């Protein structure tokens, strides 16, 4: 089934007020930033309020949308003319975007609330909330945009927010470097997105979805593929997919709520959004671009999982896991309409359980004086009961424990991929097994076993303002998957936006791949328990085997980047500077010096002897006469 036509909204209802979703948090950010210290007292509350307000608007829009006939569910709202002849700023309200909106505003609001507690001791809390609000606004613009330009504004906006938040503790050089790295790597992706836009504009003369998508098929095959690959480059940057994955692990330098919101639940999924949004047009089923998407997805899925196995930093472990999970989503998105719903479903459930996990990790860190090394945790389950329970639920969800969210969504992905391409499917299954291992390792190292922390640490449960969001998130982690996947609820809902396969897949509980998955997960978990639960975990990281080091070093991704880009880049820079100073400017200065020097030498001709002058006149006269002679007689 093809996606529905995009209609321009006739006005009325919550849909025509959808812009409030963006403007509310944006206003919040502006007030907090411009207001300065005056807003210190109530700034965080304003931030929460704006986020919640956006959620309310999103909910109202959602309600209005589902009240419409499915064929009418793609409404675009033009706001104003942005660049005449090129693009307007407009919103596209359709099932896909509203799903994202709900996720972003709901999880976002919870994390805002959580941050009240988490950041309570930070002198710059107001600024933090300003950035969070800014992020929410940009993210909403990204998903709500009805054309690529507006999407790009949101796209870079979230990049900015991400930059600001990773570098929130900018006085730490590591944070500053990580922030910059995130931005620059993202820019590489943006390059792809920009060129994709140029190509689209050159092909179609427009950048609006409503005009591009229906005509995409008229472009030549090569152009379609090119656009698809370029979009994918953008998506890779934002979603930390290979080969642009390296920034995400470093991004954990940011405060934990940031990691939860931006680097787990929402922003990093923007790439998936982009692929799904443009899917029908540029990644149709069976296309080259789609194939590349699936390959990237699988590769990242495995890479992230492997990285996750070796990390001792709890957040980095989770970050690896995020990479991996997004890999699943990409994989699903790459196979076409059959996968979109699962990709989005996994995206949503992942948003909840990963946020849950991150916030839980944050709660642990909060309790442990910001210690992130799991080797210095251990046995925390009794001291942090709520955190433990919620974290454990998130854990079960992510490893795909039957009947929890992850089980439905991940299994759905594996199954649909299996239909599409068995090799990719089995690789995905393998990834699920590794997930079982590293997540179990994390839980065991953190909450079980003997305590390994310092004398100074006094672990304590977090305040209610932090635990309540955990509880809510864990509740959703339990049930959301089943709700979305069973009876193809999400697929049907999304179909006006992204289309769907002609025949809806049923949910099969006990397929071969499903069982194998479960078995592999169990094996993985078992190994982890055996390795970390039964034996002593050394506080100091052991050297580890080659493979461990390989994983620990992020599969040498940074080393590769350094060798391939950074070092040559530095050399190039030095060369260019040298060339500029000595080469180009050297020529200019040399010319000046040459003229000056020749002046210095030539003036010696003026010897001061009148006889020399007379000689020059005499010779000159002879030459002149000769020249006249020559010219005249020629």
């Amino acid at each position, binding site marked *: 089934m093809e996606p529905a036509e995009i209609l321009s909204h006739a006005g009325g209802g919550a849909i025509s007020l959808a812009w409030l979703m963006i403007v509310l948090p944006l206003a919040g950010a502006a007030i907090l930033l411009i207001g300065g210290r005056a807003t210190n007292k109530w700034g965080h509350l304003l931030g929460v309020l704006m986020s919640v307000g956006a959620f309310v608007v999103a909910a109202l829009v959602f309600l209005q949308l589902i009240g419409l006939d499915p064929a009418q569910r793609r409404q675009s709202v033009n706001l104003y003319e942005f660049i005449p002849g090129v693009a307007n700023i407009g919103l596209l309200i359709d099932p896909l975007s509203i799903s994202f909106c709900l996720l972003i505003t709901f999880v976002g609001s919870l994390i805002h609330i959580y941050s009240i507690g988490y950041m309570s001791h930070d002198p710059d809390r107001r600024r933090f909330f300003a950035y969070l609000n800014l992020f929410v606004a940009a993210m909403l613009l990204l998903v709500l945009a009805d054309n690529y330009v507006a999407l790009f504004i949101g796209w870079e906006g979230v990049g900015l927010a991400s930059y600001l938040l990773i570098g929130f503790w900018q006085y730490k050089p590591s944070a500053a470097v990580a922030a910059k790295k995130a931005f620059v790597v993202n820019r590489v992706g943006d390059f792809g997105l920009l060129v994709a836009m140029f190509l689209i504009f050159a092909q179609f003369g427009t950048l609006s979805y409503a005009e591009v998508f229906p005509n995409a098929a008229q472009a030549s095959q090569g152009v379609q593929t090119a656009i698809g690959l370029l979009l994918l480059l953008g998506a890779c940057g934002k979603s930390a997919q290979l080969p642009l994955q390296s920034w995400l692990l470093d991004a954990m330098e940011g405060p934990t709520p940031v990691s939860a919101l931006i680097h787990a639940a929402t922003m990093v999924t923007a790439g998936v959004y982009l692929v799904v949004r443009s899917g029908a047009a540029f990644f149709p089923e069976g296309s080259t671009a789609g194939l590349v998407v699936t390959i990237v997805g699988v590769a990242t899925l495995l890479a992230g999982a492997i990285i996750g196995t070796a990390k001792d930093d709890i957040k980095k472990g989770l970050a690896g896991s995020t990479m991996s999970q997004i890999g699943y989503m990409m994989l699903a998105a790459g196979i076409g309409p059959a996968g979109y719903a699962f990709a989005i479903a996994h995206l949503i459930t992942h948003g909840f359980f990963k946020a849950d996990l991150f916030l839980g990790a944050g709660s642990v860190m909060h309790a442990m004086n910001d210690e992130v090394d799991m080797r210095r945790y251990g046995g925390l389950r009794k001291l942090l009961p709520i955190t433990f329970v919620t974290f454990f639920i998130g854990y079960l969800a992510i490893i795909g424990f039957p009947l929890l969210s992850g089980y439905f969504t991940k299994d759905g992905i594996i199954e649909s991929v299996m239909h599409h391409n068995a090799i990719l499917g089995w690789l995905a299954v393998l990834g699920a097994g590794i997930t079982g291992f590293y997540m179990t390792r994390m839980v065991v190292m953190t909450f079980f076993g003997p305590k390994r922390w310092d004398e100074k640490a006094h672990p304590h449960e977090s305040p209610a303002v932090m635990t309540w969001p955990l509880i809510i998130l864990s509740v959703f982690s339990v049930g959301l998957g089943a709700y979305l996947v069973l009876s193809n609820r999400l697929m049907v809902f999304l179909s006006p936006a992204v289309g769907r396969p002609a025949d809806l897949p049923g949910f099969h509980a006990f397929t071969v791949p499903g069982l194998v998955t479960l078995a592999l997960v169990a094996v993985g978990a078992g190994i982890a328990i055996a390795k970390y639960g039964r034996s002593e975990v050394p506080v100091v990281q052991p050297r580890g085997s080659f493979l461990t080091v390989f994983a620990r070093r992020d599969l040498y991704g940074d080393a590769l980047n350094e060798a391939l880009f950074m070092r040559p880049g530095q050399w190039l820079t030095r060369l260019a500077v040298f060339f500029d100073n000595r080469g180009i400017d050297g020529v200019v200065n040399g010319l000046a010096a040459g003229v000056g020097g020749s*002046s210095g030498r030539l003036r010696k001709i*003026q010897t001061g002897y*009148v006889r020399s002058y007379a000689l020059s006149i005499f010779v000159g006269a002879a030459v*002149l006469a000769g020249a*006249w002679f020559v010219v005249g007689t020629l």
Partner: protein
Amino acid sequence: MITAPTIEYFALAPLLIIFGAAIIGVLVEAFAPRYLRRAVHVPLTLLSLVGAFALVILQTIRGVPTTPAAMGSVAVDGPTLFIWGTILVLSFVSILLINDEEQFVPSAASVPGSAEEEKAITEGAAHTEVYPLALFAIGGMLLFPASNDLLIMFVALEVMSLPLYLLCGLARRRRLLSQEASVKYFLLGAFSSAFFLYGTALLYGFAGTVDLVGISRALAAAGGTETLLLVGTAMLGVGLLFKIGAAPFQAWKPDVYQGAPTPITALMASGTLVAAFGAVLRVFWVALGNDSWNWQPIMWGVAALTMVVGSILAITQTDIKRMLAYSSIAHAGFLLVGVMAVGEKGQNALALSGLLFYLVTYGITTVGAFAVVTLVRDPGGEAWHLSRWAGLGKRSPKLAGLFAFFLLAFAGIPLTSGFFGKYAVFRSAVAVGQGWLTGLVVLAVVASAAAAFFYVRVIVLMFFSDPSADGPTVVTPSWATSTVVGFSAFATVALGVFPQPVLDLAEKAAKSLFVQ
């Protein structure tokens, strides 16, 4: 029986006034008591210049004669009148500078540094002969570009030069340099006039006459391949190019400009240059106008060499007057570009008007610049060395500002007269529509960019360097010097913003071209 010659006294009146005033000046020297001489000379000289100028204007209004005066030896035509007016104005302001007795030696015959000289200074002795001498030189300048035959041109050349040879040696300070300048100028001047004369002889041999128009006619009859003509033209060219300071005959200019008393330098750099260019134009356009394809290539080389040599050598100069001398050489090169821009009648008028305008603007700015030079002094006289000018912009910003302005005008920055001068000449050259000439214009602008460097260097020194503790003092200018500086600055601005009136005059003067 010889029929009495007809002399058009009215047409020649400006000349006669100047020569007359000069002779009266000599009589004053002979008979007036010492204390009175100066008081007589200054008004006499200035009035004669004003009177001559008035007569020039009157003639312009009355209508320009179309035939040469004084039995065909003096051509008082449109361009001549314009040049006369220009020279008279420039001379007037130069005379105001000469009025500064500090500049001239009290007793030229006494040995420099001797007790006699000391005494002469304390006695307040002065060579008031400079006024009649200057008037003779000015008379020569007037006659030189108006000469309609080569004989009178030769005589005019000498009338103009001889007093200048003398005047160059009369500086009060740095007598050795001044005398050296004098002797160099004299020897080289005499040497070059010999060439001029030899060229005249050959042309006489070729044409049977020294009348410019006669030569032109002979040329038309003979075609351009007569070897006498070729060599003669070359020789004549040497003499003329020497006077305008074109390379490779430029060597005297820096030395003489540096050594001569600054007011005399001003007079030479402005008046002589104008007169010499007038003469160059007359010879090459009137006598050799039909032969332009022969002399243009050579003139091309000379012009290119001149502007390059002038611009490049100026860059490393450390003496302000010497630098201005090299600048003058470069400007001579630019002016030569206009000399080549001949073609049909309209084109000639265009080029001529451009040249005339350039001469006016350059002359006025030059006098102004030298006037400023007279004001910046060390204990031992004028502060010539550029390093002494460092930080002048702070010590006396107005004077430095004016000087900077003159320099910018030399560089040809828009909104100064120099810009329009250059523009007018280059325009006429481009208008010929010949690639080689346009190429020369390109070379000229490149050279003027290089030339800008040394003007700018002085500005850098004056404004961007810090003054030294024992820097030169700026004397309070006398009324005369203030007038000169003020006038030059005003004219440089006015011609830079509203050049049209003077352009109109130049065009009107050029329209009739030289009498044939």
